[in-house]
């Protein structure tokens, strides 16, 4: 079986995979990083969003071997020394999550937005979230959380 190597949340990892192994399967099943979820099979719900080389991608639509040599960050990798990432903190503060299933992908997607656009307005946030479906919150508090995180991260 082919071998794949990548850096996941700062840690170098290597594993044997099949050609067809998806990145999300590698993360969940081989690395036990079950924070990344699978909510659909048509690449639309966004529960599986992680960062590959700093860009948000849907890990259900990328082969593990496509990420060979890449730096991957998952929801488990963004809190530092027990301190929540400002985006995680904003979701908590503004009740931007309910059942928590879409949350990891939502947070990882939102961080990528602020990396690209540190001061998005409400419309830009809502458009950016096109690839993340939440069934619980009606998005209202997610949008508020991202606005708040943006303000805090700008400092």
């Amino acid at each position, binding site marked *: 079986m082919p071998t794949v190597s990548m850096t996941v949340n700062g840690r170098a990892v290597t594993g044997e995979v099949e050609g067809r192994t998806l990145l999300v399967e590698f993360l969940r099943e081989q690395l036990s990083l079950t*924070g990344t979820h699978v909510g659909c*099979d048509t690449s639309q719900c966004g529960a599986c969003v992680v960062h590959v080389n700093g860009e948000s991608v849907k890990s259900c639509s990328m082969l593990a071997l496509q990420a060979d040599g890449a730096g991957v960050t998952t929801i488990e990798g963004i809190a530092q020394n027990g301190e929540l990432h400002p985006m*995680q903190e904003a979701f908590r503060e503004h009740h931007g999550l*309910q059942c928590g*299933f879409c949350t990891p992908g939502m947070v990882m997607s939102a961080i990528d937005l602020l990396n690209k656009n540190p001061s998005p307005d409400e419309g830009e946030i809502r458009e950016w979230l096109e690839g993340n*479906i939440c*069934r*619980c*919150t*009606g998005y209202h508090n997610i949008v508020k959380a991202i606005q708040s995180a943006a303000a805090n991260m700008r400092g």
Partner: protein
Amino acid sequence: MSDTGIGASVRRKEDFRFLTGQGRYTDDINRPGQLYAFFVRSPHAHAQIKGVNKAAAEAAEGVRAVFTGADMEADNVGSLPCGWVVTDRHGEAHKAPPHFPLARDKARYVGDHVAVVVAESYAAAKAAAELVEVDYGELPAAAETGKARDADAPQVHDDAPGNLCYDWVLGDEAEADAAFANAHHVTKIDLVNNRLIPNAMEPRAAIGDYDAGTDSYTLYSTSQNPHLLKLILCAFVLGLNENKLRVIAPDVGGGFGSKIFCYAEETVCTWASRKVKAPVKWTAERSESFTSDAHGRDHITHAELAMDENGKFLGMKVDTTANMGAYLSSFATSVPTYLYATLLAGQYTTPVIFANVKAVFTNTAPVDAYRGAGRPEATFVVERLVEVAAREMGIDPAEIRRRNFIQPDQFPYQTPVALQYDTGNYGASMDMALEMIDYAGFAGRRSNSEANGKLRGIGFSAYIEACGIAPSAVVGSLGAGVGLWESAQVRFNATGSVSVFTGSHSHGQGHETTFSQLVADTLGIPIENVEIVHGDTGSIPMAMGTYGSRSLAVGGSAIARACDKIIEKSRKIAAHLMEASVEDVEFDNGTFRVAGTDKEKSIAEVAFTAYVPHNYPEGVEPGLDETAFYDPLNFTYPAGVHICEVEIDPTTGVTEIVDWVAVDDFGKVINPMVVEGQVHGGIAQGVGQALLENCVYDGSGQLLTGSYMDYCMPRADDLPSFRVGLTETACTHNPLGVKGCGEAGAIAAPAATINAITNALGILSMDMPASTEKVWRLANTQQMAAE
């Protein structure tokens, strides 16, 4: 009010694990040696299963077993039952044809379970499933709700002639006819309540795990009510002693009703784990969720409202056909009857109401409770009728509602459709909503829109719901097979912390926070010292679970009762320690005091004494661990007014929701932040139904909306921010004064949205969802008529 007590927007205790990827959902769990199940599902809506050849699949690499309905029949596995028997207008019980976990003679909908492959990997199971050869004899399908009772409709079940499950009535038809005979005006509408697919973001999953050493099973399942699942599986399906099955529902990623029911897949995993002597895991692909989760709504209704010359409602008649799908899901029959027709009074004094509901079988997935469950359908009927009546009578839509509201001094109010509302103040919510939306300014806003080539509309929905389900004796008399009480166990640990075991499963509602606030406030201890445990039949007393916005009103009341018991026992111990009589000991904010002295003992000290009873009152048992079962005295009746404002681009048919005001009366509120979140989410689902979502089967019973490519889920850019207000009349019959908030938005929103769109277009009615093409066509027709 403390900053962590009742009434405070305490940030949620459960969020840390969800935000850091440490939630534990069923698919995150793996059992040693586990195998994987993949189901062979019918590609046909209706077909005889003439034979199943398992040989090639059994021989495939990694496959341990292939099972069919015959294998389960040989083990005497029973039918998945429907737990609510509706008695029809002739006194006959509803038709409940068997619903076997793996089909035996026929497949009755696309996605029906025909066989299961159990293999060493998910990939192997899925690959081998393609090798199972099923010899289908295709049959014509009854796919449409409105045609299921046609004389030439294919029969879904031999023992349900005419595809009729029941023909049920509520109210007095003759009285209703008399009221209509005297009417100044009768408003009539025909409407479809579109079929929906719940789409909790976590797909269903299950792991059945048989332990040969103890001859017992553990089932991990994405369930809203693990105890109920255990009860059904043991008593009706698998024939097990209840002490031989433990059901664990760990973190569950949303339910909205769809995870109440006992499903084929979890049944098969449990049964199969014993057959293959290994844990058996199944996780739905989303496409399986689309075909085999219980769907929601799917009504066709004709309704009439009789009025006098002032727009005062005199009577209402409602005729509904409700689709049950191919089999009766766990509570399907109650949804279009006792959770629907009983709500047709709405917030109004309509004196006479007659409802006739015919439930039909079709070759589609089973239909059961989905967020609101019957009450959204009822509100849609009532609030569309009232809106059309206002337009036909030339009365302002807010005013016609006001004229007919039950007044605050009329409570308790007995409706003509069985329910007795305990309290409410509907005018107060209307006033606040009108002020928040600036109703007086609407005409100006509409002119501005018109100047920009847009059509602006405003729509009301004054909804009511019956929540806090429900008094056991009442529901029992109506056919429910269970009691609808809830349990709670409050365990004060020796060193001052408290563990609360609740039957109210949390899958997004924030119980771990809200219940902690309640307990911390009641017992006067720090919120950090409270831990809420739910979702495990191995540790929690028998319980009924989460649905019908009942968790706080029923589950929370049970917790409050258990806390009361803790306090009363502690009072005896404290009295002994302080050498006072029990009657003289007062309890306030965690401290027992002897009135008129400076003697005091904290409840933590008392708890320690209870477990180290060296100096202890005679006749009092050691320990401080109390259980309460709470059976509600009535339903609760949350109610409110939602107002939606839309702007339509007639060139494209695009509807934009430009403002949304929700004013709700949920009684007492424990955590306003959590309550607002529930309202937001409910509105989003209701708007989804009104604008975007539609489950469509074609005439042959093929599901056309089987993925997110075609089933339109509301996305962030489809929705506005919402403005939420609260009014409060405390529930009169539960200890907390609470009513429940989980379904309100989904109940209120469809009518508000459609009322706004039809208002903008200058028409009376349109079907949901208000797709861009429908709106464009209607806007054009109106424009042409005007020209």
